[in-house]
């Protein structure tokens, strides 16, 4: 699939079919995630892919923002020790940014494979950490639900008044010599 189609066609999917996901495709998604940009090459991310129905249900119970019936979940976590060790206290913020970029990379790649995804931040991080048996320095940043879509959500409107040229609030921009 061409990249433009993936960028403009991807939607947040909240209704999945029962079609089984193949593990090899999930592995491909994880491989794609680690090729996202990362500040200072810290690579602060950790990905926990959950496919067991019971564990998905448990995570669902503590994740109010998780809607639908995904076949798999990818918990995109930051390794706080690695982030701070490599980048100092600012590493925590950088790690969140890196995890977000990894999540987007995964979601675009999934769309290219015909899968649907939805990124979720409305979950209880401590509860999810406990359910995936992660230590305290592993912080769940985002959940990505994964499955084959049973719907094609309509694209929501996008704000178009957010582009400026050269200066904030400059709608058209001026040449330097003007």
């Amino acid at each position, binding site marked *: 699939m061409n990249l433009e189609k993936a960028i403009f066609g991807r939607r947040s999917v909240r209704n999945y079919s029962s079609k089984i996901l193949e593990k090899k495709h999930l592995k491909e998604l994880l491989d794609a995630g680690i090729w996202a940009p990362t500040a200072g090459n810290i690579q602060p991310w950790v990905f926990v892919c959950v496919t067991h129905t019971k564990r998905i249900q448990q995570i669902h119970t503590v994740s109010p923002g998780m809607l639908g019936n995904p076949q798999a979940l990818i918990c995109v976590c930051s390794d706080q020790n690695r982030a701070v060790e490599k980048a100092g206290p600012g590493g925590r913020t950088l790690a969140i940014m890196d995890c977000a970029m990894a999540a987007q990379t995964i979601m675009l790649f999934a769309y290219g494979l015909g899968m649907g995804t939805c990124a979720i931040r409305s979950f*209880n991080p401590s509860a999810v950490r406990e359910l995936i048996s992660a230590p305290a320095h592993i912080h769940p940043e985002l959940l990505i639900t994964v499955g084959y879509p049973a719907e094609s959500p309509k694209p929501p409107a996008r704000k178009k008044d957010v582009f400026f040229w050269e200066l904030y609030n400059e709608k058209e921009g001026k040449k330097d010599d003007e």
Partner: protein
Amino acid sequence: MTSDTLSRGLFDLVGYMLTSARGLVDEPPLYGPFRLIDGVSRLCEILTQEDEENKAFYKDLKSKIDERKYTVMSDTDTFINLMDELVYDFTTKLKER
């Protein structure tokens, strides 16, 4: 609904309400009404299988919620109208009882 399924459904709802309560401290204000409405939908799913006499009412309520609840993210007016309609539906049912 068997007692085990009912118990599981209510247990999950407790988890949903608890984690919603904590999460809403840091979330956008409109997520509050959304969580409550989504919670009603989840409760209706349980009651649809539990309360034979009012099954149709709960089923309709759930269906109406699920059809339009996501407008909270794209069309606030439609979401607020949905809540008004749901309150009206509920009040109509209340008068019948």
